[in-house]
């Protein structure tokens, strides 16, 4: 489904910049193509520019520079109500003075649809979010989750090809959020619509999206499918922002092809790593290892480096064990191991050797 080819792009940001005050850029040189039917998530900390991008796409903000194209047409100067884009807001934005059915009827009325057609579409939309019997209620009589379903239904009822969602699940509790995550992706796929989804919750981004654009400081740091993003972060920001991550600071001691040796600043110990953002020996680097990719007392190749670690804490978490270690002078090194019958349980103070496959340890920008 994912398509990044600009010739078939449905939504396209072309060198878009945005500044509110004329002094600083909130969005810096954004280039992004979204394919038809794609579920793209804009992920990033607050202030990273992701919501501004969404608002520019919706038409509530104008780009300071650059072009935004929808289905090949430039839409910079088209007012929001003519763009035909559905939108779901964080606070649902259901009109409190209308019933659920009236809320859904609103976009159909302004499109001057006949009554029977409206009723039919409203019913279909409500059924789609399994709220068929709630047409007569007022939004205030609904729970947060129900309101969000209605908001979704309303954004879809006029059958837009593109739907924007601005942190739609931000106000809900965890359990409900997971249910709705699933439901949103289901509906999106069922209808074959293109979704641009904004969130600061990485789990949400990973579980729902075809592709994720990680935003920071007004730029896309990495645009990739969730698994790529997790396993092959392109820089240390992405590595740290997505998932749990151990970092160690050092200098490249040896670099050859897809393998390098990094000497750690703290202790001078050496480790193996995959060079990602390092180009020559002597470069400063930050190596990143996922906690679940670390092995205890590893049996690796003869040239492989290992590190000595001291167990600080051993936490039982049910499906996994979480071991906090003191490694290379840092005491926040985490290792996750599956709860298997034969898994050793360490005691604090115990000294052990740890190691990893070189490709699991990525040498990134400092």
């Amino acid at each position, binding site marked *: 489904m994912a398509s990044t080819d600009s010739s078939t792009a449905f939504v396209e940001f072309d060198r878009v910049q945005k500044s509110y005050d004329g002094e600083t850029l909130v969005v810096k040189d954004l280039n992004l193509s979204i394919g038809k039917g794609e579920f793209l998530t804009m992920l990033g900390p607050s202030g990273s520019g992701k919501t501004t991008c969404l608002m520019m796409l919706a038409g509530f903000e104008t780009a300071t520079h650059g072009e935004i194209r929808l289905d090949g047409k430039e839409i910079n100067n088209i007012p929001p109500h003519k763009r035909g884009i*559905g939108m779901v807001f964080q606070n649902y934005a259901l009109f409190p003075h209308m019933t659920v059915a009236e809320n859904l009827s609103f976009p159909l009325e302004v499109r001057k649809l006949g009554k029977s057609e409206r009723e039919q579409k409203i019913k279909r939309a409500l059924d789609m979010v399994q709220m068929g019997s709630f047409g007569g209620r007022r939004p205030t009589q609904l729970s947060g989750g129900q309101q969000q379903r209605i908001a979704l239904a309303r954004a879809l009822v006029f059958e837009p090809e593109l739907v924007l969602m601005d942190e739609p699940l931000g106000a809900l509790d965890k359990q409900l959020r997971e249910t709705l995550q699933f439901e949103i992706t289901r509906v999106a796929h*069922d209808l074959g619509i293109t979704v641009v989804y904004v969130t600061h919750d990485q789990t949400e981004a990973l579980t729902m999206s075809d592709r994720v654009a990680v935003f920071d400081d007004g730029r896309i740091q990495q645009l990739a499918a969730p698994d790529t993003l997790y396993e092959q972060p392109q820089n240390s920001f992405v590595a740290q922002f997505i998932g749990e991550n151990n970092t160690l600071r050092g200098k490249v001691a040896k670099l050859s092809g897809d393998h390098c040796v990094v000497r750690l600043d703290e202790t001078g110990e050496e480790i193996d790593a995959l060079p990602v953002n390092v180009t020559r020996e002597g470069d400063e680097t930050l190596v990143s290892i996922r906690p679940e990719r670390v092995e205890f007392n590893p049996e690796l190749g003869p040239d492989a480096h290992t590190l000595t670690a001291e167990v600080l804490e051993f936490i039982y978490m049910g499906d996994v064990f979480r071991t906090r270690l003191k490694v290379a002078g840092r005491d926040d090194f985490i290792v996750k191991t599956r709860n298997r019958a034969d898994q050793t349980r360490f005691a604090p103070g115990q000294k052990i050797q740890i190691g990893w496959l070189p490709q699991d340890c990525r040498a990134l920008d400092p």
Partner: protein
Amino acid sequence: MTDATTGPDHLTGPTPDNALRDADRAEARGGGSGGPGDPVLAADGTPLKQSLNRALRAQKLRALALIAPLLLFILVTFIAPIVDMLFRSVENEIVVETLPRTVAALQDWDYASGEAPDEPAYRAMAFDLMIAAERREHTRVGSRLNYETTGISSLFRKSGRGVDDVGEVYTDQFVELNEAWEEPATWVTLMASEDWQESHSEWVAAGEAAEAADEDFDDLPPRFEVADRIAEILPETAGIYQAFADTIRTEDEESPAEEEPWNVVYQALYDDLSGQLGSAAETYAGPGADLLREAATAVPDFETMTVTDQMIEVDEDWAEPEVWGTIKAFDGPYTSGYFLSSVDLQKTPDGVERQPEGERIYILLFERTLFLSLTIMACCVALGYPVAYLLSNLPMRTSNLLMILVLLPFWTSLLVRTSAWKVLLQQQGVINDVLVWLGIISDGGRLVMINNQFGTIVAMTHILLPFMILPLYSVMKTIPPSYVRAAKSLGATNWTAFWRVYFPQSVPGIGAGCILVFILSIGYYITPELVGGTTGTFISNRIAYHISNSLNWGLAAALGTILLAVVLILYWLYDKIVGIDNVSLG
């Protein structure tokens, strides 16, 4: 793509909140061990309901104690005056209190007969008026009745001076018969009970002792008591003499033993002696028996003059049935007269009638007050809505600055603001000058913009505008911009998004602003007084007139009560039509 967990969340399981509530309920149910019909018991065995009430009562008392000062303050300064106003609008005790004998004597008289009442009414009036004049209350009742019938004020004032002479014809004849009748002591001996004479002697002795010791002596003489024996044979005389004694005691701090009785006392004595009971005086054996017997014998030969004639001699208006009719119409302790006047009716001796055409003013003023208030309210909405919208959508810094401009009028004296409008609007004023200078109007055709309804509407709209803007602003401030965005994203044009989505949500602010402005303007008084001329004044200007000028507080209270009722009715209507939940001040 189907899964058991995809149903609406209220079906899939309890939210944390629901779970907590359920747990609470379960716990409450589990508190008692009995069956479903048994009362739930608390830990110490008392019924749970009872111990809950006890716990809540303490809380409520504490809460009450906290608000007690405010409650008291409101009761004293707000509720009490309103109750007092309601009371005044019907209160009419002054007539029956000042003229009790007359009111009683008029019971059987019928105004419809077209004749003035008989002698007893005149006699009662003479007695009442004499007492009232001595207490200087007659002019008050005169003013009161003058509200209803023109001329009664001076009738009472004049009669208060002339009523002294009623009965003089008999005084002269009694004194001629025996000079002892002129002596206060004679009367005291004849009339006073023994108890009183005793305490009076003590009082006299105390006074003399104090004088001898050169001390101040301010004690009042003892209250006069008529002897029973004399009250039986001279009931009229006893009554009026008692009144005479009481009056000089409280008004002049004198004892009847030193004051010659009023002429009406001699009138009463004559009436008693010449009446049916006169013969009883023959058998009287108490003190002063000889004198009384002598008088009783002589009375039939006295030269007579009816009280009716004597009163008409004081003022010929007493012959007018209308005067008596007015007194009779207002003889109750409560009256609907003020309320009737408030709606251009009047209570006449013939019953309720409409005011003559030239005096109908209150209905017109009520209508005008409502009309102008509604117009001002509408102007405030029209002008205030865009301002409030702008305020709530501007960045904080700018909107604060604008807000100061909105509030600026509050910091200027009302009088100054209103006078400024005079300078602007008058015919030689700034606006007219500019229009003439621009050539839009000729010098001779200057617009009349003040001292009429236009002036009132302009000035009041300006003064009340903040009361519209503030609630509107505070409501609009709470409408998130995402609603309008949502509407636009759903395909609504700017206008549709405003009209169908934004506006309905700002209605509570409009409601609150309208209620504030309307209620304030309906009772406004200074501004219409200054710029309203004759056609732009409100009912409150008449209320003010009756409070501070005509002193007809009863009518002012009735007008105020009606105004209050109108406001309450409109408020109720608003609740019915729009719903009072649809009012928000923020």
